[in-house]
């Protein structure tokens, strides 16, 4: 059927002008809102992490002052650079004790799904401190 | 009609021009062969080609319309949500407009029924066959009768506040009187040549057109009067 069309195509050239042109794919907006995953990650962070790590990730949550060792400042640029996503995921999954750190960081592998952990990491990556 | 004898066909055509036609002749009339000055042309190609061209033009124009304007398609039918206004197809909007003025039995049944009957009866009515100009040989009495009928009709319609018919009626009556006593070419001359049935048909066509136009364009929610150019469309 399509071949038959091509055969008589020259006759349709006039008509072609009326056909709508495929528009170019729309450009992403300048200030795109955080993706759905990041928003979910923020929600999870707020529920499970913020009490100790604080809203900005600086390790200043209201539960933190009584803890020894103190929770890690995860918004620290050096820390963010040093740790890969899989490192972070490992600590979240197995807890501080599992990764050879303080046991005060609990393991979340059975509470959070793999996807939720990935989302939290996505969100944590947005917590970088602005360069002072 | 019953007085017409059966098998009547006075053959007046040119036997040379139409060699195949058989003339049926009544026994009591003398066969007459009249030669006319009318010219004949071959059906093919003159008529056939024209017909084909006509068909093509119709298809072309309709196709262009179909390419530009999409046939209307609204939301799926919803028996609980009546759109306002709910309108019938355009050719029934004259009737729907009529229903706005008269009781349903009159506007929905009697009047359309009358129109159909009138249309069927037209060719059989004696008055119609003479087809002479209406005013030909008519005196003062006719004028008074016409004026009387028009006035009565107008008053009747006015009583129903049916200006959509009353005003066209007045206009047609005015045209009827304007045509009186005129002759020759021109619009008024053409009017003066109209016969009585043609006047009645003109009145009917004008009224039907006015009603349809009003129903189509000038009626909004609750069948209220709207101006189409103000295009206020409240759902």
């Amino acid at each position, binding site marked *: *059927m399509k071949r038959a*069309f091509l055969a*008589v195509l020259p*006759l349709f050239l006039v008509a072609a002008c009326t056909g709508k042109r495929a528009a170019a794919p729309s450009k992403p907006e300048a200030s795109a809102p955080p993706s759905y995953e990041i928003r979910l990650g923020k929600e999870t962070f707020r529920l499970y992490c913020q009490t100790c790590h604080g809203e900005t990730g600086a390790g200043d949550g209201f539960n933190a002052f009584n803890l020894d060792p103190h929770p890690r400042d995860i918004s620290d640029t050096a820390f963010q650079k040093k740790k890969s996503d899989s490192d972070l995921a490992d600590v979240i999954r197995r807890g501080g004790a599992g990764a050879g750190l303080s046991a005060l960081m609990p393991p979340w592998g059975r509470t959070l799904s793999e996807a939720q952990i990935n989302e939290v990491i996505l969100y944590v990556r947005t917590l970088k401190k602005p360069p002072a | 009609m019953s007085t017409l004898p059966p098998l009547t066909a006075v053959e007046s055509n040119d036997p040379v*021009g139409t060699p195949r036609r058989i003339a049926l002749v009544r026994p009591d009339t003398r066969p007459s062969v009249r030669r006319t000055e009318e010219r*004949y*042309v*071959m059906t093919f190609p003159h008529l056939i080609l024209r017909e084909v061209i006509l068909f093509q033009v119709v298809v072309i124009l309709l196709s262009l319309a179909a390419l530009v304007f999409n046939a209307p398609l609204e939301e799926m039918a919803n028996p609980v949500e009546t759109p306002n206004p709910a309108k019938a197809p355009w050719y029934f909007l004259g009737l729907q407009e009529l229903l706005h003025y008269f009781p349903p039995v009159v506007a929905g049944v009697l009047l359309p029924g009358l129109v159909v009957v009138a249309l069927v009866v037209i060719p059989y009515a004696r008055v119609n066959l003479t087809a002479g100009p209406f005013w030909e040989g008519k005196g003062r009495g006719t004028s008074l009768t016409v004026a009387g009928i028009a006035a009565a009709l107008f008053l009747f319609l006015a009583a129903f506040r049916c200006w959509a018919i009353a005003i066209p009626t007045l206009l047609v009556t005015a045209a009827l009187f304007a045509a009186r006593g005129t002759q020759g070419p021109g619009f008024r001359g053409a009017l003066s040549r109209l016969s009585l049935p043609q006047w009645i048909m003109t009145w009917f066509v004008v009224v039907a057109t006015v009603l349809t136009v009003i129903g189509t364009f000038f009626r909004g929610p609750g069948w209220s009067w709207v101006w189409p150019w103000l295009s206020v469309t409240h759902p």
Partner: protein
Amino acid sequence: MSKVSKVSNDPRDEIRNEDDDPNRRQFLSRVAMGACAAAAVGSGVVTLDFLEPKVLFEPPTRFKAGSPLDYPEGTVKFNKERRAYVVGGSSCVYALSAVCTHLGCITRFVPDENAISCPCHGSRFDTEGNVTHGPAPRPLPWIEIGTDEKGELVVDTAIVIPHGKVFRV
């Protein structure tokens, strides 16, 4: 047209007059007829294209058939909606179409005789789809079977595979 008053009234003259310029007349006729013919052929092609359905509202041919562990040797499970059997062999699984190769009736599995029989004309097949009794001309076709990422069996009735190609568990 009747303004040309000097022409004879005899219609036979018409052709004689027309014949003055036969080439142009013929050319225009051919253009017209050619365009009409092209339009007719094109309309035919377009109509055929129009009649070809572009979307189908049919149940998908792929279906999930559970875990391979559900099919120990000798199990025959019939999927009524998709018209297919899933059969467990010795450490393998395979799937058969349930449509009789004779006239397209849906066959049924008779557990007592461990055979597939067709209710319409009495064709019989064994559980590998081979014809054991006519009039079916061919064995039942074997259809594609595999597993998805979760290890669940997936059968596709649209894909016929060679007879005897089992899915090893």
